[in-house]
């Protein structure tokens, strides 16, 4: 196999990561459904402004892991510590599992974004596109209708939805348009951490390329950190600093994205990389 060279010319060096304070630190996370072990002993650390990619076979536990990380699903064991920046800059990380329900909901609306695998789960289908985007700004205090509307227009343009469609409900959008609206709805408040489950699934290549540009720009300019589940290795290459490979509930391989893809060790990763390069 020919080696594939680094693809992100402007990638930041993360040399300082070791001394920086983590944003999210996950330890010993386990989650089973009956006999099905969806996540087994997962450990990892995410730094501010960093993007971690998760790839893996269908049913390997990727969505379950994201749901646990974002407090949407209670793990059976483990801790998920997040930098709430409560009080001072160097306040200790807080286990999100110890937060009250309202505290967690506030976190979801302000600090975090969640882009669902299925856009229906992440959109209010009965609310207009503009309303979908305006909801988060309003939840954190925006009141000026004109400002909210302008912001919504700006984000529709960024995800390439015609501004004329601002009053349409997502129900009358195509699949790819729903997906892009979901991304706009989540990013409008510039969260510190975004969880994304297959954000570019079902998007045509040109729109996908632009969306990736947009996401890369946001990560770079606003320092947004992200955990991105995808089956598309090209997306991983462009977006993720580090990569975790899941297989039947385990993280079987992890490391810098280019290292993992150029020199895969686990048989599943090898299969994954070879099948893409063959296609």
């Amino acid at each position: 196999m020919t080696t594939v060279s680094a693809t992100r010319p402007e990638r930041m060096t993360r040399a300082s990561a070791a001394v920086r304070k983590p944003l999210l630190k996950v330890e010993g996370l386990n989650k089973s459904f009956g006999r099905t072990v969806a996540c087994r002993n997962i450990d990892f650390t995410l730094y501010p402004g960093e993007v971690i990619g998760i790839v893996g076979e269908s049913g390997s536990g990727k969505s379950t892991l994201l749901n646990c990380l974002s407090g949407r699903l209670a793990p059976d064991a483990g801790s998920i510590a997040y930098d709430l920046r409560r009080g001072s800059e160097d306040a200790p990380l807080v286990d999100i599992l110890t937060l009250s329900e309202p505290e967690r909901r506030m976190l979801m609306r302000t600090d975090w974004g969640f882009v669902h695998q299925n856009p229906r789960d992440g959109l209010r289908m009965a609310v207009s596109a503009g309303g979908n985007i305006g909801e988060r700004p309003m939840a954190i205090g925006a009141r000026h209708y004109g400002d909210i509307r302008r912001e919504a227009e700006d984000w529709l343009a960024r995800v390439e939805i015609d501004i004329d469609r601002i009053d349409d409900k997502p129900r009358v959008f195509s699949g790819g348009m729903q997906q892009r609206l979901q991304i706009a709805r989540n990013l409008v408040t510039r969260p510190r951490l975004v969880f994304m489950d297959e954000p570019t699934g079902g998007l045509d290549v040109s729109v996908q390329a632009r969306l990736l540009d947009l996401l890369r720009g946001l990560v770079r300019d606003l320092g947004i950190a992200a955990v991105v589940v995808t089956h598309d290795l090209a997306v991983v290459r462009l977006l993720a600093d580090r990569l975790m490979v899941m297989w039947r509930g385990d993280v079987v391989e992890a490391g810098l994205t280019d290292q993992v893809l150029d020199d895969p060790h686990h048989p599943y990763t090898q299969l994954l990389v070879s099948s893409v390069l063959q296609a």
Partner: protein
Amino acid sequence: MTLGMAGRPTARIEVEGLTLASAAGDILVNDVDLAVSSGEIVALVGESGSGKSLTALAILGLLPRGIMWRGGRVRLNGTDVTGLAGPHASIRGRQIAAIFQDPQASLDPRWTVGRYLTGQFRRYGATSQRAARAAAVDMLARVGLGDPARILGAFPHELSGGMAQRVMIAGALAAGPQFLIADEPTTALDVTTQAQILDLLEDLQADTGLGVLLITHDLGVVAEMAQRVAVLYGGTVMETGEAADVLGAPWHPYTQALLASMPDLAQPAPPRPISGSPGDRLAAGTGCPFQPRCRDAIALCAQRPPSVVVSGSHRAACHRSEPRLPHGFGGDKTQPQTSGYPLPAAGTSSAERRHVG
């Protein structure tokens, strides 16, 4: 009905002049012609919002409320089945199966997978509950879902995204359909699982003569699977022909730009998106829909472009096709500036191509 090579009648879906509009009167699909014969995989590709799903829903007679039929016919094996419902609906249901873009929404949340799948097999011929269950277990294995006992007992919300997508594929194939309309059937699947599904479709194509209309944004999948391609933009067919011709020697500026925007794993550069946005298009009927974004546009492009023969069945709807045609006639094809999508070498089996067992 036309006669196939063996003198057997060839089954065929034909769409002619399909034109659909929104309630507000915007043309969403404009004069689309499309045909799928049995044993053939035809890909429908194009920009998000270009009308792919609406075209599929029109063929199935399942257009959502608020979409107006403005013109065109759909024929199934020569019989006109145009319209929303009526006596043809049941024939169509049995002969044309469908996989929709949104799997979880197509599965009833109150039903276990077992109840759904055995129901499908009973409806389409299994004579007993036991036979239906056996058929369901068999089909689950073919879509790569081992542990059938767990899957059959599961409710849709207990499945992962890719599992739900495969359950839906299993259900669609239960009818033993002549045709399958598959709208992004593998988007939720990792590449190895995707390869298994694509192999299954290819097997059915070879063994039972299944004809497939495959809607996908993955041009790699098109290159591997499809014999023919239609490229849509703004509800209009921009280019159509043999997959090898359209992807290997794209003629239309939109197809060229689309191929150029593909992310390339082996290239140390980010993909180059097409400039402008999908919203920038001329209203249907007032000229070439790609005009606002096209680098090659000329004054003439404010008029509707003719569909021009590039060679054989390869056609493109572009004013600029005409001046370039003379180079393409008389045998060898003109090389367009874009290098096309790398097609798999002829003669390699799909298993070899994808390196999965």
